[in-house]
């Protein structure tokens, strides 16, 4: 049986934890608001840009730009976006599970897989498993900037053009709502899913109708690399917002559990105190009876 003092100590400890989780929740809420605004602002731009490119790429000549080319897939690059810090529920676990699943899928199909990671959690995960990663960026998730995104995008583009990699997919958590994140696996390069490229004859006319100024090549030259930057930037922002949202709800749950724990311990404490008082009374009564006799 735990002594009174032990129980009191535990109550104190749980209360301290609760204070921390509560504070972390507040911090996450503030960070979330900041990154969420930036993400919501970027979304329409990223979507529109994607739409424009899609309508262009559908009929365009695949050879017209190195970033459009469909090559026989040999090496698939998987970019895994996680957070740097933990304590955000199943956020990182979900991402890593999904990433592992697609990596296993590609391996089974006979492709080489090269992995780039964003965030310490993904880096550590692959390090623990002895899987070598091509590139690791850390220190981004709490402080996403367009420069970060460009750095990653430039690396990916370079390797794609060099033909070190033939396909790029990004695995990240998309921010859906305060309580829900969806694991998203998006193909970044080459543009447009492979199936659509096969039925090119049907949509060839769409591109031919477009007037390009100054020229299609000039527009592609600027638009396609920019799209890669923007899509990666978006993935980073979404992931960062999703991380803070996940941490917020995780901390909310932790705070709630702490309250429950304190309640239970207080009950135990009162019971123990009652028991000790009863015990003392019994002693006194026993003593008085003995004196009488």
């Amino acid at each position, binding site marked *: 049986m735990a002594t009174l003092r032990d129980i009191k100590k535990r109550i104190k400890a749980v209360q301290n934890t609760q204070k921390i989780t509560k504070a972390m929740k507040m911090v996450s809420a503030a960070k979330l608001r900041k990154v969420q605004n930036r993400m*919501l*602002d*970027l979304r*329409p*731009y990223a979507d*529109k*840009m994607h739409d*424009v490119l899609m*309508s*262009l790429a559908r009929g365009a000549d695949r050879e017209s730009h190195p970033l459009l080319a469909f090559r026989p897939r040999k090496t698939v690059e998987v970019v895994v976006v996680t957070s740097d810090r933990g304590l955000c529920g199943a956020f990182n676990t979900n991402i890593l599970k999904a990433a592992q699943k697609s990596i296993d899928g590609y391996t089974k199909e006979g492709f080489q897989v090269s992995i780039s990671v964003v965030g310490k959690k993904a880096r550590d995960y692959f390090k623990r498993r002895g899987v070598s990663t091509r590139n690791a960026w850390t220190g981004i998730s709490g402080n996403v900037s*367009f420069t970060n995104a460009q750095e990653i995008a430039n690396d990916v583009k370079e390797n794609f053009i060099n033909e070190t990699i033939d396909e790029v997919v990004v695995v990240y958590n998309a921010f859906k709502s305060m309580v829900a994140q969806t694991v998203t696996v998006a193909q970044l390069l080459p543009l447009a899913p492979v199936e659509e490229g096969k039925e090119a004859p049907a949509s060839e006319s769409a591109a031919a*109708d*477009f*007037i*390009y*100024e*100054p020229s299609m090549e*000039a*527009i592609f030259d*600027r*638009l396609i690399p920019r799209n890669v930057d*923007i899509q990666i*930037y978006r993935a980073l922002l979404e992931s960062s917002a999703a991380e803070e949202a996940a941490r917020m709800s995780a901390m909310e749950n932790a705070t709630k559990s702490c309250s429950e724990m304190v309640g239970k311990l207080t009950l135990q404490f009162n019971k123990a105190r009652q028991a000790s008082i009863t015990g003392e009374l019994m002693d006194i009564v026993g003593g008085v009876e003995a004196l009488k006799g």
Partner: protein
Amino acid sequence: MAEKLKLDIVTPYGHVFTDEVDEVVASGTEGEFGVLPEHVPFLTTLKIGMLTYRKGSQTGYFFISGGYSEVGPDSVTILADSAERSDTIDVQRAIEAKKRAEERLKQAEKFDQARATSSLERAITRIHVAEKK
């Protein structure tokens, strides 16, 4: 037959404008172009410049600092690097930016000339657009 154009201006910092309009004039890298409904599909890059739209008897002006424009039969989508409506432009800041850029152009060896030139162009265009209200 489309009678109106849906004009959308989006930037990485948010959706700036969306409305049904009658006419759009924008500055492409190859020169200014006007769009009326039923325009042929058209895609161009934009340079730093002014975008004008007309809706009935009402006109509006935007400062656009480069980007892309996709024109369809009944829509104009502007993907701008940044965009400001004429009445939200901070003229004071633009004037200061203009002065700073001019200073930098004089000290050719110390500053990146290409950057100074484009920031001067942005500042001048901003001031110009802000005057149209």
